[in-house]
């Protein structure tokens, strides 16, 4: 052993070369070693949830700067890096993600984009919400302005995902979660969207509650356009259901004559109450116009167009009758069609005959009360009568063969008189009109069929 001590005193010359080795090894290996440790540390943190992770290696010492989402996550991160082989020391520059109080998250939709802002509890939540956004809202850019914060309520991800799905049903608007309170505002994309959103909110995770729901429905619109050139009545927009649809189509058939019905109506929920009661009289008023447009938007009924003569315009402006629901607002914009050029009485007769071949003046069964559906036809007859101011006109009433002759004669006489009264009331001189009742004495079709009887029950205008 003494020899070894003795020899060791002669080992120093090799140390000079050893120092050279050391210097070269340090020169060439420091950077690769640091890079290797950085890579191993990064790999070790792969399964630890952190934000803003920065790893700096100085020699064998690792400085870990990151934001952790819990104390436990912070400890786990440090332990993971400390366990990396080769790491000598870990400088802890981690901190906890700030806590948001209240924890607010929101999604706002405008025409071109959906912006997600506020706080998300974890990076995974952010990714999940972005995915949910892309799934719910096709073709719209999703802008991520979310930060990360602690303090999210339990099941936040589920609540936010559900709300994002509702944003897909909005035209524009905003949904917000503040702690466990949910607020919604904006305009639904489709009719029924508001109701669909309200229904979906019932599935919010337990603990969440809807503080405010100010989602508005788009206006419930029904439109009718009477086109005198194409001779069409075009119905478009929405009706509540098939029953109301049928009632409106039937009313249009009765109130209009000659016009081809173009029915583009669609069924949708969300109609204001009393919809049919407002639309049907409004269609009657539209039928009286030469050309016109009816727009029912929510509870506003807007009728614009040209009446055939001044009296009709005044009546239409005055209102839609006692059955028109008071909750609806009626806004008529009625002008009067310029008077047509006067014509010869023979032309007048031709016009009366043509018109009455297209539509019939109707009365309530076995009574002398004018059916309101015939008003539009009467307006057209008045317009023709105004064009031949010198012609005297016989208004002839006829019945079918049912019933006693005396009753029929009287009924036809009274009905003809009612028509004459209506014409006089409209401003025509009474002296030009004679009401004559023919009963069933002048049938134009057989009285053995319902169709024939219907043809026989008629009012004729004869220029004398």
């Amino acid at each position: 052993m003494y020899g070894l001590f003795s020899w060791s005193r002669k080992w120093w010359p090799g140390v000079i070369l050893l120092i050279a080795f050391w210097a070269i090894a340090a020169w060439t290996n420091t950077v690769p070693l640091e890079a290797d440790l950085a890579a191993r540390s990064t790999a070790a943190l792969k399964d630890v949830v952190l934000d803003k992770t920065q790893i700096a290696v100085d020699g064998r010492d690792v400085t870990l700067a990151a934001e952790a989402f819990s104390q436990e996550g912070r400890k786990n991160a440090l332990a993971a890096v400390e366990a990396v082989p080769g790491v000598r020391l870990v400088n802890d520059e981690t901190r906890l993600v700030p806590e948001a109080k209240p924890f607010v998250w929101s999604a706002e939709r405008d025409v071109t984009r959906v912006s997600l802002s506020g706080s998300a509890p974890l990076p995974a939540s952010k990714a999940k919400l972005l995915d949910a956004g892309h799934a719910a809202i096709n073709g719209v850019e999703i802008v991520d302005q979310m930060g990360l914060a602690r303090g999210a309520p339990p099941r936040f991800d589920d609540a936010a995902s559900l709300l994002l799905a509702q944003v897909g049903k909005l035209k524009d608007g905003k949904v917000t979660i503040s702690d466990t309170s949910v607020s919604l505002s904006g305009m639904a994309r489709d009719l029924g969207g508001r109701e669909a959103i309200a229904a979906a909110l019932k599935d919010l995770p337990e603990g969440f509650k809807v503080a405010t729901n100010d989602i508005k429905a788009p206006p419930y619109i029904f439109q009718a356009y009477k086109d005198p050139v194409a001779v069409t009545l075009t119905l478009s927009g929405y009706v509540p259901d098939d029953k109301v649809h049928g009632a409106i189509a039937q009313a249009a058939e009765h109130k209009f004559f000659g016009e081809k019905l173009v029915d583009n109506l669609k069924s949708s929920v969300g109609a204001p109450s009393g919809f049919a009661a407002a639309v049907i009289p409004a269609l009657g008023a539209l039928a009286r116009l030469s050309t016109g447009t009816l727009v029912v938007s929510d509870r506003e009924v807007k009728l614009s167009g040209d009446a055939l003569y001044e009296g009709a315009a005044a009546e239409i402006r005055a209102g839609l009758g006692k059955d028109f629901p008071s909750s609806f607002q009626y806004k008529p914009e009625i002008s009067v069609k310029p008077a047509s050029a006067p014509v010869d009485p023979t032309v007048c007769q031709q016009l009366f005959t043509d018109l009455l071949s297209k539509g019939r003046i109707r009365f309530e069964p076995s009574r002398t009360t004018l059916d309101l559906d015939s008003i539009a036809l009467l307006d057209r007859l008045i317009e023709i009568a105004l064009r031949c101011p010198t012609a005297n006109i016989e208004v002839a009433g006829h019945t079918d063969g049912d019933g006693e002759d005396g009753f029929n004669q009287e009924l036809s006489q009274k009905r003809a008189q009612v028509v004459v009264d209506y014409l006089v009331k409209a401003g025509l001189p009474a002296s030009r009109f004679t009401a004559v009742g023919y009963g069933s004495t002048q049938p134009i079709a057989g009285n053995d069929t319902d169709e024939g009887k219907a043809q026989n029950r008629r009012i004729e205008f004869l220029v004398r």
Partner: protein
Amino acid sequence: MAYLVMFHWGWLLASFLLGLAMGWISVVQHGEGLSKVTSRWVAALIVVLVALAATRVVPGRFGYWLDLGLILFACYLIGCTIGALLRNWVVSRQRARPAA
């Protein structure tokens, strides 16, 4: 430690071989080498350096270079020791043979 050895095994082997050669020579080399006093100072220096390394008080790259220097030196010493003992064994056999 294992990581350092794995990462620098080439340099450690070189230090070991250098030590082996130095140890081999030292047995038959004439002269006194370092004085006892100097040896003690060197030993004391090494103890201090080992203590610094063990307590990890030297920061960053300097700490790494200290660790690296010490394990190179350790390999060198092991090499020297083995080299010296081997040479001593060889020399003793050569001396024994003529006598036999």
